């Protein structure tokens, strides 16, 4: 199969929907779904192959930027994740968006997203990755703003795009610096040893600036604010873009970078101080997000913060020079987080768009399939042994072992168990609290089918090593049977049990939240602080500059020039242009005399 088809099919689908099928919702949804099924099949056939191809995008003299693909285990494995989850989300959307008035636009944007994400995954060079990096940003913008007539959705979309733009600002500088340091933007030609030839501060800066892109896209501190707001988009979108694939692109990019530079724990000093900064950014993000998650009431917000927290985990792993652990966690997390989001989507759908978990309750009996699959996802996220999440989290804990980050990661794991079980207990156990939850009934098979498949993957994922998006170069092996003698295993069990017990004790049978920590509930007031900062640093400065522009340039410079011209003119008008004929004659004579003097005598 030609890998270009992976680009062409979703792009064609998006283009056809935008150009021709706008009015036919049914046709466009089917076209979009078929396109993603086709790409999934192609992605499966391409597993394990290592082709590459490219065409010249721009060329100026000897300088060239190409659009091309480069298949390796990292890319093909990631493609399976993207197209696989994409396919299930498309199918789920057929049910979830059945009555939406802008279904065609929705599916068009989904196809657009699949196209862009494919570009990131298969990109053969940084310039191309940046192109598609921005394009996923666009698709995410469009999909978050799907219900753009709601102010909150429109604002959230804008916020997401702008936060990403700030990250991309650094990303672009990083790409440019790496381009000059390594002499190329093509992944296959990059050589990490070049980093050793420049001053270490510069090498570290280049890596960190590139990491800025990941900070924006993977919503790490301090640019994490857009991801919870992005939950304004339709829930399947949250599952696909804002949980499983796009937000993980930052981690993927860093893994791709480390792979291209050939970073290993042995030669890590070429990266200078960058890894520590990356690891701590990830660690702090995971902690802060987990703390915020414990006090949220919106089912999607809880999942959003848990996504943030898990992304922090992955970034931390990358920073600890264990990108294989990060990628492995990305891979397992994609399946069960998509499951959780789609599950929450099913719940929201069944409860007539109620998202507050304190208004739900007792859903286990009303919608057993959803509830059980959701429980599977929860267990995977909380890293119960033999679930997918357990293995990957274990890998990260191993990587962190011996550093302070290990304790932080363990504490985050405890918090994860606590807030996820809080969500499950409050929403699915007990009695229905409100009208919506009472009337809830199991969703249609078209929506529960993806849930079941994803639930299977939440167990099966670690056993299908062919589709791991982990390059063979990294020599990644993990043991199916946990090592009973390792402290990591027992820590992991310990924090799970502690978290679970705490959640049951605090939340079992409660009708309202017994704990109230405003700091966590209000997200550390970061949104408010940013709002103030933007108002001061940007809007106020803009207003001042505008004023200065009008005053300095408009009034002083331009006005000054006008007034001085006018002044000089007035002087002449008064003395020379006074209407007296004899005066004119006199001046003319004077002029002639001067001319004669200068031509003849001077």
């Amino acid at each position, binding site marked *: 199969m030609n890998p270009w088809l992976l680009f062409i099919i979703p792009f064609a689908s998006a283009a056809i929907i935008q150009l021709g099928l706008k009015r036919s919702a049914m046709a466009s949804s089917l076209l979009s779904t078929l396109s993603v099924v086709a790409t999934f099949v192609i992605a499966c056939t391409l597993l394990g192959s290592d082709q590459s191809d490219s065409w010249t995008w721009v060329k100026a003299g000897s300088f060239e930027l190409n659009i091309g693909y480069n298949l390796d285990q990292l890319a093909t494995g990631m493609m399976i994740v993207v197209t696989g989850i994409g396919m299930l989300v498309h199918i789920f959307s057929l049910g979830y968006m059945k009555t939406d008035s802008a279904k065609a636009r929705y599916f068009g944007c989904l196809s657009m997203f699949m196209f862009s994400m494919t570009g990131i995954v298969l990109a053969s060079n940084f310039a191309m990755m940046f192109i598609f990096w921005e394009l996923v940003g666009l698709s995410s913008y469009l999909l978050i703003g799907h219900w753009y007539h709601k102010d909150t959705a429109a604002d959230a979309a804008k916020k997401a795009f702008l936060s990403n733009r700030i990250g991309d600002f650094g990303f672009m500088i990083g790409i440019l610096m790496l381009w000059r340091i390594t002499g190329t933007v093509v992944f296959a030609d990059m050589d990490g040893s070049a980093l050793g030839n420049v001053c270490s501060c510069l090498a570290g800066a280049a890596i960190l600036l590139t990491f800025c892109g990941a900070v924006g896209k993977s919503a790490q501190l301090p640019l994490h604010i857009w991801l919870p707001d992005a939950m304004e988009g339709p829930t399947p979108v949250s599952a696909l873009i804002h949980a499983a694939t796009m937000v993980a692109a930052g981690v993927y990019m860093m893994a791709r970078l480390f792979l291209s530079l050939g970073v290993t724990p042995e030669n890590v000093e070429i990266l200078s101080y960058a890894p520590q900064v990356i690891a701590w950014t990830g660690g702090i993000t995971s902690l802060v997000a987990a703390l915020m998650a414990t006090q949220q009431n919106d089912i999607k917000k809880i999942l959003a913060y848990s996504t943030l927290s898990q992304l922090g985990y992955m970034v931390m792993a990358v920073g600890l020079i264990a990108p294989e652990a990060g990628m492995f966690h990305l891979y397992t997390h994609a399946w069960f987080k998509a499951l959780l989001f789609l599950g929450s989507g099913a719940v929201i759908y069944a409860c007539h768009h109620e998202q507050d978990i304190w208004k739900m309750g007792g859903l286990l009996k009303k919608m057993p399939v959803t509830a059980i699959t959701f429980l599977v996802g929860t267990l995977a996220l909380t890293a119960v042994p033999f679930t997918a999440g357990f293995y990957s989290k274990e890998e990260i804990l191993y990587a962190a072992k011996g550093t302070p980050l290990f304790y932080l990661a363990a504490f985050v794991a405890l918090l994860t168990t606590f807030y996820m079980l809080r969500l499950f207990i409050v929403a699915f156990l007990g009695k229905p609290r409100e009208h919506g939850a009472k009337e809830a009934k199991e969703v249609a098979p078209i929506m529960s089918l993806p849930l079941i498949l994803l639930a299977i993957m939440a167990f099966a994922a670690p056993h299908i090593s062919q589709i791991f998006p982990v390059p063979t170069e990294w020599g990644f092996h993990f043991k199916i049977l946990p090592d009973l003698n390792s402290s990591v295993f027992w820590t992991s069990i310990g924090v799970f049990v502690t978290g679970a017990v705490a959640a049951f004790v605090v939340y079992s049978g409660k009708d309202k939240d017994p704990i109230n920590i405003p700091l966590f509930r209000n997200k550390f007031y970061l949104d408010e602080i940013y709002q103030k900062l933007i108002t001061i640093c940007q809007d106020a400065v803009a207003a001042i500059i505008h004023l200065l522009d009008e005053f300095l340039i408009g009034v002083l410079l331009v006005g000054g020039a006008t007034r001085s011209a006018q002044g000089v003119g007035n002087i002449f008008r008064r003395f020379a242009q*006074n*209407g007296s004929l*004899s005066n004119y004659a006199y001046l003319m004579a004077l002029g002639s005399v001067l001319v004669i003097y200068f031509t003849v005598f001077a």
Partner: protein
Amino acid sequence: MFEILPSLNEYLFASGLLFAIGLAGVIIRRNIIVIFMCLEMMLAAASLTLVAFSRFNMVGGLPDYDGQMLVFFIITVAAAEVAVGLAIIVSLYRARQTVNTDDLTSLRG
């Protein structure tokens, strides 16, 4: 026959004097007709210079007549110009009832 011909300098001096008087008249006087006459005087001064130069610029034993030719032109053109100029002054008087330049200040900027 013994005659003392005035030298070129004397001619030029006379013409310069004439020109200066004309210029002074143009600048000082207020009556537009007088100004006009002074202008003519300046023109005459210029003509005088030309004739003088012509007379004293001998080419092959004969004066260079180019200058004198030019003077004829000037006289003809000046006649035409006087006609037009006086006509303008007459119509100006009809329009403004004055020929005093102090009252004609519509050129003031």
